[in-house]
């Protein structure tokens, strides 16, 4: 019997789906008159998308269809209807730091941001490195009744980088990948073993690329700004050294390495090198590395402090181009809520990270789509189709029979970011006060509306 | 709106006045023994120098000349608005037992002299301090009086009396500037 048939190593979350909970008795949703944009089928046309019993039933282009009482009709004229966005990298802080986020508040924040599914990183307290912990995260996510939550398990026990966690048990409990994110995998030997062992279960190993001795004590990108501000810098080589290391190990092992939050021009060049050689490397970039540079730190703004740090304009340009040409496969948020008190500190002492679930679409739209660097179809690919494919998750398509995870958004709507109004408990965003373009109007998970924008 | 300035003393009259004041100084102190002139920044310094020069010429005696900037002793620093520039103070003597003549250009409210007295106290204890001013325009707010006065003028509170010295202003004289509206 293959591991899949025996039940060990299957993805538990595939079997269960959130129940439909729309208007009582309603099991159909008609998303009417929107621009249905599904690059997985090469569809870009106006029409009605019909969802039934938690699945995509059909796509009707004929106008003026009538719907009966058992249909909930959502008017999508002027809006884009896309396969649900998936965030493969976020931190939901539960268990351990429920004061800054819970799985429930995080899943709701994700829904507000248009995400129908998120993958929760395991650097919780205690670390999610065993089947019981993974099961806990999965069940908390289901109870939230918002975006789906796919747990990611740790690579090593306690994320200490010494011995492997039980990948098989974790996958059986619902883990979709393994990662020690928060920390790098400092030992090349451990990374190699993880890549080999993960092959058994068909899951990616996601690495936070940071060479610890080069980066130690650093608070921002090493460069002219760090020299002026008197802050210890993290050189771009700290990321690039681990990027090439992981690519070479992926080549040696045949495993799938997924490189988290890439931020430098050098990293992009190395990924290209790896992909040209057919190595199984995938990569993600975060909205902040596509929109902000190290200058955002000026004035010691702790809401511009994250790891990897904001880089130079040349780096930002290279990462944008890589998102455009697919060298970087997908956009992930690295949503990292922190308590106000923790960020209200001397810069060097403040923790790394910013929230991102509720601003991701708007940031990518404002900084990449609006200036014409990518089109909306590419945005949908990088935020939905590619994440689903890379992590082998359900969704990422509006093909007939797919799960009814849909994101409806207005690509032109302007809005001013007010962190005080975030659904997430975290307020640490550098975009506070910015006017952005693009807003999620409706999020549907498994045929159930989990978010509807007011006004 | 400022009207045209009226000349109170032209340069010749000013020179005459200073000569007379020098005579009065010698009379007041009964000679120049143990006497130091201290001019108040800024124009008091130039006037003090002129008086000392006159004494040097007439009596063949060199009276030591000091200068005093009273900015840091002003009683209105918190409310004067813009921070005034602080000029140099040169008083390289212990004033204990000495006789001091303060020299200033215009005596009005008396607050400048009060500040000067406070500052002099930090340099020692003179046996006598006297005050010589070129112009006394009245309007005292403190019980201060000048021992030697060059000219008394009677002006409205909103008028300005300016002393000009060639070293700073290009010419010598005393002018009165009447103001139509309050200063």
């Amino acid at each position, binding site marked *: 019997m293959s591991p899949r048939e025996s039940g060990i190593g299957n993805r538990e979350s595939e079997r269960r789906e959130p129940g439909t909970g729309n208007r009582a008795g309603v099991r159909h949703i008609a998303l009417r008159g929107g621009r249905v944009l599904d690059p997985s089928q090469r569809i870009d046309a106006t029409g009605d998308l019909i969802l039934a019993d938690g699945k995509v039933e059909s796509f009707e282009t004929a106008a003026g269809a009538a719907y009966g009482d058992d249909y909930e009709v959502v008017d999508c004229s002027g809006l884009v209807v896309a396969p649900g966005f998936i965030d493969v990298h976020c931190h939901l802080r539960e268990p351990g730091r429920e004061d800054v986020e819970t799985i429930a508040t995080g899943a709701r924040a994700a829904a507000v941001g248009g995400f129908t599914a998120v993958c929760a990183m395991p650097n919780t307290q205690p670390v999610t490195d065993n089947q019981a912990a993974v099961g806990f995260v999965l069940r908390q996510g289901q109870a939230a009744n918002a975006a789906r939550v796919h747990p990611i398990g740790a690579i090593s026990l306690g994320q200490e980088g010494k011995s492997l966690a039980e990948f098989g048990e974790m996958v059986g409990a619902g883990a979709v990948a393994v990662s020690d994110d928060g920390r790098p995998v400092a030992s090349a030997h451990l990374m190699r073993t993880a890549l080999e062992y993960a092959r058994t279960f068909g899951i990616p190993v996601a690495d936070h690329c940071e060479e610890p001795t080069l980066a*130690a004590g650093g608070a921002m990108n090493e460069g002219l700004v760090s*020299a002026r501000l008197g*802050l210890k*810098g993290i050189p771009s080589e700290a990321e690039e050294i681990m990027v090439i290391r992981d690519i070479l190990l992926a080549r040696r092992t045949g495993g799938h390495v997924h490189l988290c939050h890439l931020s430098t021009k050098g990293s992009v060049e190395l990924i290209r090198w790896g992909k040209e050689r057919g190595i199984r490397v995938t990569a993600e970039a975060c909205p902040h590395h596509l929109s902000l540079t190290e200058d955002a730190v000026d004035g010691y703004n702790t809401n511009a402090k994250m790891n990897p740090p904001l880089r130079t304009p040349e780096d930002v340009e290279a990462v944008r181009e890589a998102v455009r040409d697919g060298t970087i496969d997908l956009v992930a948020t690295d949503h990292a809520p922190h308590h106000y008190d923790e960020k209200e500190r*001397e810069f060097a002492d403040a923790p790394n990270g910013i929230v991102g679930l509720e601003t991701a679409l708007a940031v990518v739209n404002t900084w990449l789509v609006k200036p014409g660097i990518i089109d909306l179809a590419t945005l949908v690919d990088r935020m939905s189709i590619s994440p689903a494919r890379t992590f082998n998750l359900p969704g990422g398509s509006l093909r007939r029979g797919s799960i009814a995870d849909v994101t409806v958004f207005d690509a032109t709507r302007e809005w001013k970011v007010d962190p005080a109004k975030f659904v997430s408990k975290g307020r640490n965003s550098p975009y506070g006060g910015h006017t952005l373009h693009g807003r999620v109007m409706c999020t549907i998970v498994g045929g159930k509306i989990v978010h509807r924008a007011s006004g | 709106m400022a009207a045209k300035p009226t000349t109170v003393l032209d340069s010749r009259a000013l020179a005459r006045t200073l000569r007379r004041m020098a005579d009065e100084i010698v009379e007041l102190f009964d000679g120049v023994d143990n006497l130091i002139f201290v001019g108040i920044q*800024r124009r008091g310094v130039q006037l003090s120098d002129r008086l000392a020069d006159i004494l040097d010429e007439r009596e063949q005696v060199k009276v030591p000349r000091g200068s005093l900037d009273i900015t840091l002793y002003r009683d209105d*620093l918190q409310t004067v608005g813009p921070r005034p520039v602080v000029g*140099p103070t040169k008083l390289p003597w212990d004033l204990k037992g000495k006789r001091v003549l303060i020299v200033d*250009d215009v005596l009005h409210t008396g607050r400048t002299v009060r500040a000067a007295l406070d500052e002099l106290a930090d340099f*020692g204890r003179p046996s006598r301090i006297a005050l010589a001013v070129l112009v006394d325009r009245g309007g005292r707010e403190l019980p201060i009086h000048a021992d030697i006065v060059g000219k008394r003028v009677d002006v409205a509170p909103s008028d300005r009396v300016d002393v000009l010295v060639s070293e700073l202003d290009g010419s010598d004289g005393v002018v009165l500037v009447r103001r139509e509206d309050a200063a």
Partner: protein
Amino acid sequence: MTTPLGKDLLALEPLTPEQIRLILDTAEPFKEISERAIKKVPTLRGSTIVNLFFEASTRTRVSFEFAEKRLSADTVNVTASGSSVSKGETLVDTARNLEAMRIDMVVIRHSASGAAQFLAERIESNVINAGDGTHEHPTQGLLDLLTLRDRFGSLEGRRVCICGDVLHSRVARSNIWGLKKMGAIVGVCGPRSLLPNAIADLGVEVFDRIEAAIEWAEALNILRLQLERMQAGYIPSLREYNRVFGVTRERLERAPRDVLILHPGPMNRGVEIDSDVADGPHSVILDQVTNGVAVRMAVLYLLAGGAPELADAAKGGSDR
């Protein structure tokens, strides 16, 4: 009331040359007060100033204390421990408590870059940065400028080289900004591992060898090799540092001109500077200390009041 300096003195980088000149000019008359028998003027009588030192420092704190007391201010010294993360009150709470006590001015020294700005943004009192992490030490930069200006007459076009651990030095950064704004030509000299990678982008000449720096410079500002800041591994040993980079009498004798010697102190004699240089005829190190009190008095005076009239203030309007 606003001054041309604003509410706080946090750094030299944002100041204009006019503002720097104003501070240096204002410092001149304050030097004389320290020569008097009674070293006190009543200017800041009734003001309360807190010296908030999170890092140990005798020299700077005492200098500020003298400056404050000579202006007749009431001073309180608070030595607080470490950073917010370790024991004790957070910087935010410290700020709020000070404000609640109606302090007029705070002089802060802290180990985190940006700490002075952090405080200044949260309290209404004037804040003076006495050194924040590796960012800036503006009053030290100013007193160095004053010392050089006294000797040179003008800083325009003068070649000044900063020697040592520039990477970790807030004195170096303040000097670089201050000197450049006054028109001087700035150089740095040290092992590359102790110079910021982007140093050339700051607009300074870089010398890899001390001999080249000495040949080029009209003044050397020699930085203390900061043992307490160095993470291991930037240089192999103090011995080698002295042999390769130490400013010694022999090296100075080979200079084509007399080179002024400055050092912010405290000195590691025999490491970055030899004793006969520190005590030698071209050393202005003690002048720096004297000027330090005058500069700090000038800064306190300027921050505590309004913008200076550039003329006629001493002449006075109706207020004679």
